[in-house]
């Protein structure tokens, strides 16, 4: 026994003296490929598509899924049609789908003749991302008895739906895929078609959608199906949603049931929403309160007022206050809100400010003065001030407000000159609102230019973009091209080479610990960035500033309101991994604008696939993720030493 121990120790020693590779980036060529990908250098990268080594070709094809340069489409198409290696073809199909364009379609359509199921699956999904309505039959007429192909078809239908390219034939096919004899992934993609299409052509899917929402074994499918209920006839949908809110054991399905209520008249959905407000899980209550708030205008029911007193949390309460303003213009609750406000935390304050933004009638002026006071008070927390700005903008844009636009404009000018990036961004959006007609009011743009001078790329892209847009609007020019961050943050490859596969990271919160598994092989740049920040203790003490029921919890913002960033940005790194429960992604304001913010998903979110980097997966602590609320603090984030094989 002791002998064995010694041997193990010796072996460990031997390992430590000459460190064996811990990930694939010990291969210099791979580093080259990934670096070219990071630099978005299509010309050089393309050469690796004809490398002798299939592994390099696979990685290169995949790299183009992130580069998304149509200059590579011909080469990728050639790989898709000709490469002897199955996975090169599969990756090429994925990359073409990500890139889009006619050349991609011209390669994808002939590759339907391919006989490898893994390739075909990807080709079908890519076609869904790329084809136009004229070519719809290419996808909608295909039949297969192979589960993987069916999955590809369903995924293709999903993308067609999202892109508004689907027709009644696709609807009928998607509905068929909802039935039990198809695989979970097929059913999920089909249900997502109904969940994520803004409109659905054709009929005849209703029964199957309802069956899937109530009976599917997979809660992911039920969630998506429930989300699709907005396409159903109101009384039928609400009847079933009322059953689901009472019976489904997965709170996320209940969240979606409540959220689906948004698409129906609040008078009819009253039962559903107030049941949601009494749910045992906070997320369901929040979702219900938000729907009541957003649909509250003109609601005449009697349930709202008592519900405010019973409200379980600040977030619920703020939403109900907001709704109360909408239902009852005479409601004298401004003072009550202000009283609570004085003792509230920053995040509670920001919710209450948004509620005050809905005050109307005789209370409007009171609320207005209170809000702009909070906005201009530079002792206030950033979170509070950006919410105050948002509340003002919402007041400003509401029809029927009694406060003249010029009053708002005065405040806006002062606020912008205080040069808070978030405030600048939020206000800029209001300035280019055509209905407010600030074009006539503002003759002197100097305050905007002054604000602009203080913003810089890549840090402030999220504020700079709307600011530039609104300057262009006010000057009567065309909308400027979307801003792009230049390459500014090379990947530290020496560091990447030391990151073991599946490196674990622990996030401690008061509610428990979340363990993440880093995916260095798939997203080396994002993982290296994240781990560097962890080592700098960057995330310690930061808040979860954004929690959307059954969607994501988000953190990593240095301001706490979501507008924070550092003076660098990193690249998007897309792989074929799909967002499921507990995927960890990089937040961004468009491709290649990622920085320090990240999020964890509550459930499947297909609309993020291929658009947001996934750099980690939640290993442990999903129960904690489900409990996290806005304002929960990260105690610390630490890299866990994992045993080296």
């Amino acid at each position, binding site marked *: 026994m002791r002998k064995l121990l010694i041997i193990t120790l010796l072996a460990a020693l031997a390992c430590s003296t000459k460190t064996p590779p811990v990930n694939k980036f010990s291969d210099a060529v791979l580093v080259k490929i990934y670096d070219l990908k990071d630099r978005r250098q299509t010309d050089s990268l393309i050469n690796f598509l004809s490398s002798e080594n299939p592994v390099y070709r696979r990685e290169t094809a995949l790299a183009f899924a992130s580069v998304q340069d149509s200059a590579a489409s*011909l080469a990728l*198409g*050639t*790989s*898709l*049609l*000709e490469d002897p290696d199955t996975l090169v073809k599969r990756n090429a199909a994925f990359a073409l789908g990500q890139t889009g364009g*006619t*050349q991609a*379609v*011209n*390669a994808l*359509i*002939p590759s*339907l*003749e391919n*006989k490898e*199921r893994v390739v*075909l699956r990807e080709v079908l999904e890519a076609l869904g991302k790329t084809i136009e309505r*004229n*070519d*719809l*039959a*290419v996808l909608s*007429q*295909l*039949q*297969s*008895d*192979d589960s993987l*192909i069916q999955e590809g078809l369903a995924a293709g239908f999903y993308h067609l739906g999202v892109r508004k390219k689907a*027709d*009644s*034939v696709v609807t*009928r096919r998607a509905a068929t895929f909802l039935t039990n*004899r198809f695989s979970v992934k097929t059913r999920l993609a089909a249900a997502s078609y109904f969940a994520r299409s803004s409109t659905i052509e054709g009929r005849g899917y209703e029964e199957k959608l309802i069956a899937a929402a109530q009976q599917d074994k997979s809660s992911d499918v039920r969630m998506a199906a429930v989300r699709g209920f907005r396409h159903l006839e109101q009384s039928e949908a609400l009847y079933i949603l009322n059953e689901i809110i009472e019976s489904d054991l997965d709170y996320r399905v209940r969240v979606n049931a409540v959220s689906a209520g948004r698409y129906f008249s609040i008078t009819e959905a009253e039962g559903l929403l107030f049941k949601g407000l009494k749910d045992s899980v906070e997320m369901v209550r929040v979702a219900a309160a938000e729907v009541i708030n957003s649909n509250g205008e003109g609601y005449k029911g009697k349930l709202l007022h008592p519900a405010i007193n019973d409200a379980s949390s600040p977030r619920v309460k703020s939403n109900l206050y907001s709704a109360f303003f909408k239902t009852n213009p005479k409601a004298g609750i401004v003072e009550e809100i202000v009283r609570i406000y004085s003792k509230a935390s920053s995040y509670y304050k920001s919710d209450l400010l948004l509620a005050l933004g809905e005050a109307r009638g005789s209370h409007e002026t009171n609320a207005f003065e209170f809000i702009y006071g909070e906005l201009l008070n530079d002792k206030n927390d950033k979170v509070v001030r950006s919410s105050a700005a948002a509340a003002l903008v919402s007041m400003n844009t509401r029809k029927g407000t009694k406060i003249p636009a010029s009053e708002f404009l005065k405040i806006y000018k002062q606020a912008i000159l205080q040069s808070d990036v978030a405030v600048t961004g939020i206000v800029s959006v209001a300035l280019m609102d055509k209905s407010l007609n600030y074009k006539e009011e503002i003759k002197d743009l100097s305050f905007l230019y002054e604000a602009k001078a203080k913003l810089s790329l890549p840090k402030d892209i999220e504020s700079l973009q709307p600011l530039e847009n609104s300057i262009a609007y006010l000057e009567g020019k065309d909308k400027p091209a979307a801003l792009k961050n230049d390459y500014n943050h090379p990947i530290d490859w020496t560091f990447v080479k030391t990151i073991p596969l599946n490196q674990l990271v622990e996030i401690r919160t008061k509610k428990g610990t979340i363990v993440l598994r880093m995916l260095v092989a798939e997203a080396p740049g994002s993982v290296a960035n994240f781990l560097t920040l962890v080592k700098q203790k960057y995330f310690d003490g930061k808040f979860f500033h954004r929690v959307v029921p059954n969607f994501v919890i988000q953190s990593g913002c240095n301001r706490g309101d979501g507008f924070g960033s550092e003076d660098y940005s990193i690249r998007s790194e897309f792989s074929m991994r799909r967002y499921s429960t507990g995927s960890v992604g990089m937040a961004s304001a468009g491709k290649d604008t990622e920085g320090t913010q990240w999020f964890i998903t509550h459930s499947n979110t297909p609309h993020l696939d291929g658009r947001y980097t996934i750099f980690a997966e939640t290993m442990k602590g999903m129960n904690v993720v489900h409990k996290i609320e806005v304002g929960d603090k990260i105690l610390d984030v630490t890299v866990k030493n994992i045993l080296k094989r």
Partner: protein
Amino acid sequence: MATQKRLKIALVGKPNSGKSSLFNQLTGLNQKIGNFPGITVDKRIGFCQLDENTSAEIIDLPGIYSLYPRTLDEKIVVEILTNRKNENFPDCIAVIADATNLKNCLLLLTQLIDLGLPVVLALNMMDLVAKSGLSLDVKKLSKQLDIPVVMINARQGLGLDGLKNKLTEQVKVSDRKIFQPLNEVVVAVDEIQTHFNLATSYEAFQYLQQPENLLFLSSDDRTFIKTVASQQNFCPHKYQGAETIHRYGFIQEVLDAVIIKSAAQDWRSTSRRLDRILTHKIWGYLIFFTLLFVIFQSVFALAQIPMDAIDRGFADLSGFLSKRLPGGPLFELISSGIVPGIGGIIIFIPQIAILFAFISILEETGYMSRVVFLMDKIMRKFGMSGRSVVPLISGMACAIPAIMATRTIDNWKDRLITIFVTPLMSCSARLPVFAILVALIVPHERVLGFISLQGVALMGLYLLGFFAAMFSALLMKAIIKVSERSYLIMEMPTYRMPKWSNVGYTIIEKTKAFVFEAGKIIIAVSIILWVLASYGPKEVMDNARATVQNESTNLRLTKEGFENKVAAYKLEHSYAGIMGKWMEPVIRPLGFDWKIGIALITSFAAREVFVSTIATIYSLGSADDNATIKERLKDEVNAETGGPRFTPAVGFSLLVFYTFAMQCMSTLAIVKRETKGWKWPMIQLIYMTGLAYVSALIVYQVLS
């Protein structure tokens, strides 16, 4: 009279584009079937009068998607179209395209244009186009491609005159150059073009791209191409993808220009509504199996009526001839060898006709694609395709039409496995053998009052055949490594009424193919078998009568009994008899004696001959009465043991042997025709006989 001009015209197009319909329409019954050398594809050639002065030889080439072939069938097309010296090289090509799905049909067309071949584009299925609301500017299409374009409806024979007119005119070569070899390969292409003196650079490009598929190239040619390729850094096949993408780009542009109105979304709704029932997970199968049952019943029972008539007719003819013709071996050959031999061929025609009527209706209506959809997943596990189901089930009636029906399976390996295992399905010819042996060894009793033991045994034999077929399919699948799956994804054709004349043509074509190709072999083998069973060493046969007389002086035989004895004696001493005795050591471990050995040899003509041979050898005369034969067999004593000859062990051994053995020369003949060679029928013969031998051996040894 003006001199007749004779044109060679090739029909080219994707599978299911309506090529065969057009061929039938153009040539009527004026067609013949030949072979392409070294390949299992029928070469269909027909003749057609284009106008007063021009006739055409029309060749229906196998369906093809692009000039880069993936199957043997496709290779033959490329081989012909790239070789101007090929005997089948056409003067003009008619490309048939499904107008409802033009995008996929035009790739090949653009390649043919680049090869500099005179092409006419025939847009087929114009009726469906009208139905779908699609509207095309045909003149513009013709202009864009710089080739004549005609609209046809091959099923109804509409627009054929237009097509014929275009074909009669000197079709000029299109001026379009759609795909130009990339700059980096121009030098190599030029060099090849000059060396081989080729008309177009694309032809030279093909030489470089796929020399291995252009079989007409000599080894010197190949070496030259290889040298040029390596000098100029030309990697064969490297540019295929880029070419395809480029062509699709071109096609997209053309279509954007010529499509005036796209098809309505839901024009296939009737079809789809039908599909909801016909491909339903329960109803779909139910309907399909009902249909299979009807087909089986028709091939099995309905065909029986004409078959009996043919059988009787030929028996009468044979009897009539043997009475009327003068004696002598030649006339005997005619009356007892050739005439029954021809009868043995003709007798299959009803089954073939009926099965192919059904199959071509299934194909014509579009239902066959649904069968594939329903059955493919299951059948693929056994290395077969969804289309194998109809042949397999038909095999339970008769393997001959069943094997011919495998033609509908497009994947060669799937088809081969189906051909290989179909004869294991118990066919109707086994039934007489089964009936008599089961009656002999299985007690006529009932279990639980209603289950007949004999019935159970009979069913067991059918199941045994079925399982052997499935097992063999698995074995074959493992051996020939069916890696590629024949069907993953497909587009369902719309349902349509069958075109009855096409059904007729199919029946005629299949019948002709059987009679003239398999028929030769069947006649030859039946004559040999007849000789073996009728002749023996001269003096023994000559003295047969006397010998029998001598031996049976004490037996007081009737005249008929005496004749039967003579016949038995003659058979015993015929060459077949000698072979049977000579075989005895081999078949003894199975429990068979020489008498059974003789029956094994003669029943190679057809399994049911076993019964008549047994009747003869046991001096029973006519084999009509099963009960008599059964009684006689029961009484037969085993000389060695003193017990009955046909113990259950022997009976079961024989049953198992007949279940598995390839005791049918007609099947072998048809397999030879369908696989275009003796390799597969021989492998099948050896495999099945081996399987039968080993199984029978085990059964006998275990039971006795």
